């Protein structure tokens, strides 16, 4: 049985506001040039995600979403940023993020993606029975924006951040479209992200060790054959 639809305007506004904030943070990541700021925005995104999960949890009175919110807080606001900062520190990464495409063009592209996502998601949103119609579009847009960021940035770490941004967007979509995935799945996804981060960590050291840089141009393989 679907849960009773809460006709609480404020709550809807709150969820909507958090969604737009998330989208904005994705844009910010796309536009940001400094590495440390990127990680900070990522942490901020984690907070937004936690709040949004909490809001949905309260509105829908789904208890397992509380657990999810807690987990998000611990993992995406505390743990991951800490690891990333440590990495930045250890690997002496500072300064500007080099971009393959300049920022203004990226922004224009991003705008297009947002419009595209919203139109695409429009008919689906009509079907949503959750508190947060329309937010599937936001999730999709954030997903594609993070994707765009992975494409346009040159450093390995920015790609990882993009990847994690995608993860956030997915999580956001899952929460808002369906009040979260089944527990088993969520645990699994979380575990995968954890392992993934761990693997990233290993990688960074290996890449650093082998190429003495985290610039992706070393990772291109045209010269291999």
């Amino acid at each position, binding site marked *: 049985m679907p849960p009773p639809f809460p006709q609480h305007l404020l709550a809807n506004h709150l969820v909507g506001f958090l969604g737009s904030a998330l989208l904005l943070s994705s844009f910010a990541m796309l536009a940001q040039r400094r590495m440390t700021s990127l990680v900070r925005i990522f942490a901020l995104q984690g907070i937004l995600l936690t709040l949004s999960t909490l809001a949905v949890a309260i509105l829908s009175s789904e208890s397992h979403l509380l657990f999810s919110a807690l987990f998000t807080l611990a993992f995406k606001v505390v743990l991951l940023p800490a690891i990333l900062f440590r990495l930045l520190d250890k690997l002496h990464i500072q300064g500007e993020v080099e971009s393959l495409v300049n920022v203004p063009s990226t922004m224009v592209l991003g705008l297009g993606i947002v419009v595209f996502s919203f139109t695409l998601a429009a008919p689906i949103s009509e079907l949503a029975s959750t508190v947060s119609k329309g937010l599937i579009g936001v999730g999709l847009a954030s997903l594609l924006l993070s*994707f765009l960021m992975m494409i346009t940035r040159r450093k390995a770490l920015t790609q990882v951040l993009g990847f994690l941004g995608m993860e956030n967007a997915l999580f956001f979509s899952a929460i808002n479209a369906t009040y979260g995935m089944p527990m088993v799945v969520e645990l699994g996804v979380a575990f995968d992200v954890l392992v993934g981060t761990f693997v990233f960590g290993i990688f960074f050291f290996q890449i650093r060790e082998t190429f003495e840089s985290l610039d992706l141009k070393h990772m291109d393989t045209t010269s291999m054959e």
Partner: protein
Amino acid sequence: MTLLPDPLETSLLVLMFWGMMAVLGFFILRISRTFLSPLLFLLAAGGVTLASSGLSGLTSPADLHRVVPGGLPGLPFHFRQDPLSSFFLLLLGGAATGILIFSAGYLRSLPTLRIPSFFLRTALFLASMEGVLLADDAYLFMVFWETMALVSYALVVTESNREEVRNAGYLYLLMAHFGSLLILAAFFFLASREPPGLAPGLSAFTFEAMGKSNPTGGVALLIFVCALLGFGAKAGLIPLHVWLPEAHPVAPSPASALLSGIMLKTAVYGLLRVSFGLLGPGHLNYSWGVPVLLAGGFMALFGILHALLQSDPKKLLAYSSIENIGIIFLGIGLAILYIRSGHPVAGELALGASLYHAINHAFFKSLLFLGAGTMIHASGTNDLNTMGGLLRRMPFSGVLVLGGILCISGLPPGNGFVSEWLLLQASLQAGTLSGTLLRSAVLLGAALLVLASALAAMGFVKFYGIGYLGIPRSEGAQKAHEVSIPERIGMAWLMAGCLLLALLPVQMLKGIDIVLHSLTGTSLPTATLSSGWLWLLPLPPQGASYSPALLLGLLGLLLPLGGFLPRVFGRSSFRKTPVWGCGYEIRTPRMQDSSGSFGQPIRHFFANFFLMKRHLPDPSEKDPVFELTVEDPHWAFLYRPAFRLFQGLAALAERVRTGRISVYLVYSFGTLILLLTVFRWM
């Protein structure tokens, strides 16, 4: 209940026997080479059995089927021996026997040959060819067909340490695969109805079911074109022939004989099977006969012209195979044209002549390839310019090769003449056709045929005159000696086959008539078949006649008359003297014609058929050498451009591979966006 197995059972036994012998022989020969001859004789015994099975299939119009478990679910192995199969089994068994007996002597003289694997390949090759002839469903057919291609490739690259051998083998296998894919396509179109029921209804792939398919005109044309090109690639249809003169010569001679003498015929079999057997004469269109006919005529001319310029005897023979396959195709084209425009008698005659030529070619071409093997072995090289005077040193095999030469040149009373004569007789029925264009096409075909046949005579005068006559051009040829007994027996076997085919055409035509009847439902005229063995009357009552036996008898009578005259008129004493040579004192082997100079008039006159690069030395050059390379124009005008096109495409594909992760991410991104857009707005 009879104890004797029926022809199909016999054939299947031979198939199993050859297959088992291949493996068994391989291991036995790895232990000791001494068993080579007995093993080859055993294979030859299989050949004789097979020939007899084919013969019995031709004397009574039996159509035998067997289903053997295996294959794919719903498509077990189907075997069938109908008259068409029987005919080609006779060809296979008969010619293979001679080649195998020959091998027993010949292979011993090749110290570097890896005997066990060669034996394995030979036996498997024979088995797979037989399988092709017996298969009665598309899957099994393709299994045998591709096995045949593979094993023959292995035979070609037996001496694989040489670069050009590997290249030739590669080219061959590539073209064979190209052909196979087209044949597959033909089968698919024949069986393209979605089978009913839930089980993967593969029963549509039995030849029986395909034979009942009823394709529309366009599909039928597609099937026919696919089959023609597919089997043509194996048969050396121009322009798919380039592999043939490269691959056939580099194999050891018995293998070349199998390839040229027999394997090419499996392609003819396949074409007939698909076009007349599966598609059925009812689905052919008379107009398709014209391109086949003209392609055949062109092949005949092109093949023999290139043969004339070769100095490698086996390459010469390989090009001559193109010529002969051209003649066979010409007959098939003629048959389609006649039968489908309402002249069954002439059509049957043309088809019969084609079949006749196929079996003729199997015998004389095998014989000549074996002869070429002995020539090469004697002189130590594969260059005609190092041979000469071999007839004096190898009289027995030399005479047999001479017989083969007369047969392949289409001279009476040889067997090659019989089939070409029948084909001409069929061509001359052009008057019964309506439409000037059709008539002209048929007559043009006939004109090409006679031209090719005359050129063949010239080509083989070169082959024999330079190889066997004159004085030796090299030390090897000087020291040549007669070949071993098994080699002689093998060659004599093939010669005997040629003689039988030459002198008993009516008997052979009776067998062929059964094939024709099973394929098209009509027969040759009864008077042709009942006129007695002596007289060949293809188109009674007013048509021409020919009696090879009487002709041979008359020639035999007049020969002693000639020998008698000197005794009547005067003395008949002989004295050996040095040659006169118009009074020139010096006489060296190099003053004889080289193979290049013999072909010069042809090169000059038919210059358009060749791509020649001449290097005329400058007077100031230190070491002035005149050089001339002759190339098949298809390389320059078809194959190299095709390869360049492929390379261009490959380079284009390479541009996808930038090596940059960002670009690869763009691919994913773009694909996603594209699909979403399409899904949402279309």
